[in-house]
């Protein structure tokens, strides 16, 4: 397809959409009065209702239903797919990796973000320093994965061959031999997790920095007059004051990490025991054609997200109530 064809197609779609919205607005502007209110509400909600029902509610229910069927999706097998997730050794590795991701990423990314936010607080070049850490947030997971794959690149140590990956070159400069970072499990999962930490630390830093700046100055001043030193200030003033923000950051990164797919797929493709639930869902559904297991993995993801989201929302609520 030519570029101009594509642009024409896009403009057609936008015009069609504008026409639909135009009709809705026209009809809504014709009705008045109390009865009219109901009609306007119905008109405004109709497109959303159709899309959400067809695109979220029905597919969600359908996937839950299909998770009770076998690979071909024809024979009912009850909870066998879920049993597979918790018993087969491949799937247990997937679960272990997912737990590693979800436990390590939020805490390390938040710790680095918090440290950096405190270090650069009130610095002259604060805005610039923040942008440096924050930029990875704007990069796609695929882009970040390529950047880091390049850092981890390994060349065998023989003859004239030079390392082209930075990490192995640093190893050589320090007098060690180069290492295949992405091959050996479970260490390789940590090298993948570093990529996610690299992306998420900027998010943590930005939110926590804002929270730190919102700590009332008189509290800080009172503590200082009481002779509280830097570390005490951190423990007894900063952390308690920004606790709601900390929890929101931890849970938000946790949710994002649970669904991590792009990094694993781009860097290792789930090989060398690095797969996680979201990647395994894709492999089972589209590669291994095991529909039932794929559906069960998607439902697992759903179930695991719920408690974190509920906790996240409750924290946001209580923070709001303050």
């Amino acid at each position, binding site marked *: 397809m030519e570029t101009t064809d594509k642009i024409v197609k896009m403009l057609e779609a936008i015009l069609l*959409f504008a026409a639909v919205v135009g009709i809705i607005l026209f009809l809504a502007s014709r009705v008045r009065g109390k009865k009219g209110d109901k009609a306007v509400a119905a008109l405004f909600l109709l497109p959303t209702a159709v899309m959400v029902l067809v695109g979220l509610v029905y597919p969600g229910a359908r996937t839950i239903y299909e998770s009770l069927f076998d690979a071909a999706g024809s024979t009912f097998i009850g909870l066998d797919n879920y049993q597979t997730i918790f018993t087969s050794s491949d799937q247990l590795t997937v679960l272990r990796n997912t737990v590693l991701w979800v436990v390590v990423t939020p805490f390390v990314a938040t710790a680095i973000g918090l440290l950096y936010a405190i270090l650069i607080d009130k610095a002259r070049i604060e805005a610039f320093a923040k942008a440096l850490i924050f930029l990875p947030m704007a990069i796609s997971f695929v882009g970040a994965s390529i950047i880091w794959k390049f850092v981890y690149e390994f060349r065998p140590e023989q003859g004239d061959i030079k390392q082209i990956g930075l990490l192995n070159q640093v190893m050589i400069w320090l007098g060690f031999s180069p290492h295949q970072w992405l091959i050996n499990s479970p260490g390789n999962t940590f090298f993948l997790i570093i990529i996610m930490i690299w992306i998420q630390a900027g998010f943590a830093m930005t939110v926590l920095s804002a929270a730190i700046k919102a700590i009332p100055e008189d509290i800080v001043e009172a503590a200082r007059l009481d002779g509280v030193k830097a570390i005490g200030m951190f423990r007894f003033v900063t952390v308690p004051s920004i606790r709601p923000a900390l929890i929101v950051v931890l849970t938000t990164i946790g949710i994002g990490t649970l669904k991590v797919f792009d990094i694993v797929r781009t860097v290792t493709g789930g090989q060398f025991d690095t797969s996680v639930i979201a990647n395994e869902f894709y492999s089972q559904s589209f590669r291994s054609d095991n529909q039932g297991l794929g559906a069960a993995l998607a439902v697992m993801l759903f179930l695991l997200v719920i408690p974190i989201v509920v906790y996240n929302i409750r924290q946001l609520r209580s923070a709001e109530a303050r």
Partner: protein
Amino acid sequence: MTTAGAALPMTTTPTIAALETASGKAKKRLTSRWASLAAAVIALLWTIPTFGLAISSIRPERQIKTTGWWTFFSDPQVTLDNYRTVLSSEGSTGLGAYFVNSFIIVIPSVLIPISLAALAAYAFAWIEFRGRNLLFVIVFALQIVPIQVTLIPLLTLYVKAGLAGTFWSIWISHSIFALPLAIFLLHNFMREIPKELVEAARMDGAGHVQIFFKVLLPLLTPALAAIGIFQFLWVWNDLLVALTFAGGGNSVAPLTKALADLSGTRGNAYHLLTAGAFVSIIVPIAVFLSLQRYFVRGLLAGGLKG
């Protein structure tokens, strides 16, 4: 977003009270020297990988494959060939068509859900009708559905409707996935607008459509911008939706899919990977830098998506 905004107001701090003694100042300078060093180390660790990629992308193919990017400083050889190859639409190596696809995908995928969400949010915020709260809670709850749960049934529907492998399947999917969060955020913004403004307009005989356009829309511009930027970055950077619905070849698939494939099948085509990745990165970074203040406001809220 309101929730986020209220929890974490982006305020600026007043200047520190001038209570510090001379010794305190000296000590502060000392600790701040260590602090600066630590901050500099983190900043370096966070920028060097991207910097290395940028340097590599302008080195000749042979150089990239045989020496590290840091040799560029002792032996600087610059070429734009990688970019020329990557941006051309011809041949199997060119990513030009994918680059175009990314733009074709992202524009409707931002416009459609935000317009629809604005209408729905208005109905939830300013029109009284039975079942309003229940419906709103349902929309709110739908935010947590991971898109993985919906992909295969959606794909089946697209195949039946003859939309599989077209831009339509991607536009519709991104729009659907964006709606719950966008409605929730816009509803919160709309509720913040003083009731008197809306009621005064109603007294003057304005209908809902007029109120929506004349009273609310001008006040909502920052919110719409924040959500729009977020959706732009989300769609531009998406891989999963593209992999599932875009099909093979370069007729519909975006840059992220092309890069992921390139990284998998030709893992050592670093001259294409570096330039290609840099092209894909430069667009969201430009968007982010030019609209940073909106982006940061929308940050917390956007984290729940996906």
